[in-house]
């Protein structure tokens, strides 16, 4: 069984199998760009993630948290901009994946060599 906590706030109105609401409020981005007024908003009724969700790629050992604070980084804006969507987006083709791994390998090797020398 999944261990869950009592939920004290009004937003958590109970859900199947736990007392966490199946719906939540979340920031939603609707398309690429940097006109944040148009593409970014807080919306209600977003499905609350659960431990049974299929996790995003490269993500394992998931744990559910009630979010208190979120820090932004350049990557947040870059992903949203679409300027790197072929590499940081969802739909890759095979050669893109292979080349990406080669790039990561070369940069990692660079770091290792740097420390060694």
């Amino acid at each position, binding site marked *: 069984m*999944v*261990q*869950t*906590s009592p939920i004290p706030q009004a937003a958590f109105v109970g859900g199947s199998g736990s007392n*966490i609401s199946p719906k*939540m*409020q979340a*920031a*939603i*981005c609707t*398309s*690429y760009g940097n006109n*944040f*007024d148009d593409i*970014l908003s*807080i919306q209600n009724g977003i*499905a*609350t*993630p659960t*431990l049974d969700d*299929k*996790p*995003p*790629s490269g*993500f394992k*050992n*998931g*744990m*559910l*948290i*009630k*979010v*208190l*604070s*979120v*820090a*932004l*980084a350049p*990557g*947040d*804006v870059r*992903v*949203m901009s679409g*300027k*790197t*969507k*072929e*590499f*940081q*987006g*969802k*739909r890759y083709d095979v*050669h893109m994946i292979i*080349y990406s791994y080669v*790039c990561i390998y*070369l*940069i990692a090797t*660079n*770091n290792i060599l*740097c420390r060694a020398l």
Partner: protein
Amino acid sequence: MSCTIGPPSFPYTPGGDVCGIVVAVPEEDKKKGEKCKFKVGDKIAARFANKPMGMLGEYALVNTDICDVVPDGISSEGAAALVSSGMVGVILSDYIKEGDRVLIFGAGGGVGSHLCQMVKNQGASYVAGVSNDPKRLMESPLNCDYAIDYKKTNAFTDVKEWQENPFDVIFDLSGGAWPQLVKQKKSKSPSIIKPGNKGGRYLTTTPDNPWFELHTVVAMFSTFIAPSLKRYLSSRLLSRRSMPKYSYVLALPSNDVVVKRTLKLAADEKLVPCIDPKGPFPFTNEGVRDAFRLQESRHAKGKVVIKVAEE
């Protein structure tokens, strides 16, 4: 679930580095016999896994491999800042040796604000910063020995003391300092950094153009791979007597070792989380949009943080 997968699967929820309270943990891994190391009610800080997305909501799934319990006395805003930029600052500071003279480009941003503190902790003898708010760099907790405004002062030519007593290490967090060093070398004017054969090191976390676009493998190669490999090799083989050793540092380990270390440093008051004074931004339409605008400007003074809920 499409909301947490991310682009180009729209809509998605942005946000990657987070602090929150554990409300559900996975059951015991029966194959490995391992129980989750966290329990319901723990206040944890987590770095993003793979892609920065899925965190900016009331609830989020985090990867237990890249998070740790937040020590008492650290706010949720501070913890979110630490697990993101603070952690990178800690990793970069490992390149510092006792007595190094250090120059940091982009010293006022999220990573820079934490790196300024960490290089002092590591025993640097002199720390100088470049940003658009030099006064802040010289105040606590950053405590730089000297700072300049890049809009008013050219770091490569205008500070005589830096040319007379060049740095051991340059951290380029804003991008574009290497071409300036090459230009200096070609003009045969005194360099502000020691050459590689005398211990000079140049470390960066960004390409020359921080607003880079990558749409093809060729662009990936010409933006990241070719310049970093060329500079890495030439600075060690061909120009080690005139240029510092170049390194492009990837500072995102996929384990909790540095997360633990960063939070411990903060608990021991050796690292103070730095949050842009305009924040923490409220979890409203305007608040979130303003936070993204500030992040996009690359002129944040510390970390851009959004407060989603009270503790």
